[in-house]
């Protein structure tokens, strides 16, 4: 079953604009991660934010986490055509003995040159 739900399902922006995508989840988490997937192939890890963190930066990426609302957002600043891809949030549940990541359905981002 899908835990995270990304919003919007699809996003089209001009190069240089910022892109924001959101993720909601249902259960308590240990951490939340964002991955990128190009053309239906392997996923690439972008950033991980732990449940006790509220904001994290990595290059042009900014991730926020609100555990009270069970939601996260990924901001890509100054987008480039190369950022065109599908973006997935994935949650790692809290508690011992659980190792699976649960992915959402993803946001398909198109950056127009």
């Amino acid at each position, binding site marked *: 079953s899908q835990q995270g739900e990304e919003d919007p399902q699809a996003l089209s922006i001009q190069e240089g604009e910022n892109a924001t995508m959101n993720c909601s989840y249902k259960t308590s988490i*240990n951490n939340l991660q964002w991955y990128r997937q190009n053309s239906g*192939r*392997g*996923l690439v*890890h972008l950033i991980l934010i732990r449940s006790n963190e509220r904001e994290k930066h990595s290059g042009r990426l900014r991730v926020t986490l609100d555990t009270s609302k069970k939601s996260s957002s990924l901001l890509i600043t100054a987008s480039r055509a190369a950022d065109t891809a599908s973006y997935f949030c994935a949650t790692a549940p809290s508690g011992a003995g*659980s*190792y*699976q990541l649960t992915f959402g359905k*993803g946001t398909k981002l198109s950056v127009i040159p």
Partner: protein
Amino acid sequence: DAGVTQSPTHLIKTRGQQVTLRCSPKSGHDTVSWYQQALGQGPQFIFQYYEEEERQRGNFPDRFSGHQFPNYSSELNVNALLLGDSALYLCASSLSGAKLFFGSGTQLSVL
């Protein structure tokens, strides 16, 4: 440093057949997870192998089985293939941590 490698890249089978997919983890990684990704969906967790044992399993039938070898490589076996098993199968490796490194996947088509 080789990343996660999967074979084959593409595979076509017919209903009722059996298939074996293979995965070599990133050098130094000891944990392998398998995911199924249907078209337009996010990856769904099948199972994870650690120290040659299935450590956790997702909501998949027993037709899906796996194995991990002493060199940490892994196989995913699917018996009695159904049309609905058509998907991209992704292998991911990790080292005692949360961050996953994915292979490029095996695209399985069941006719």
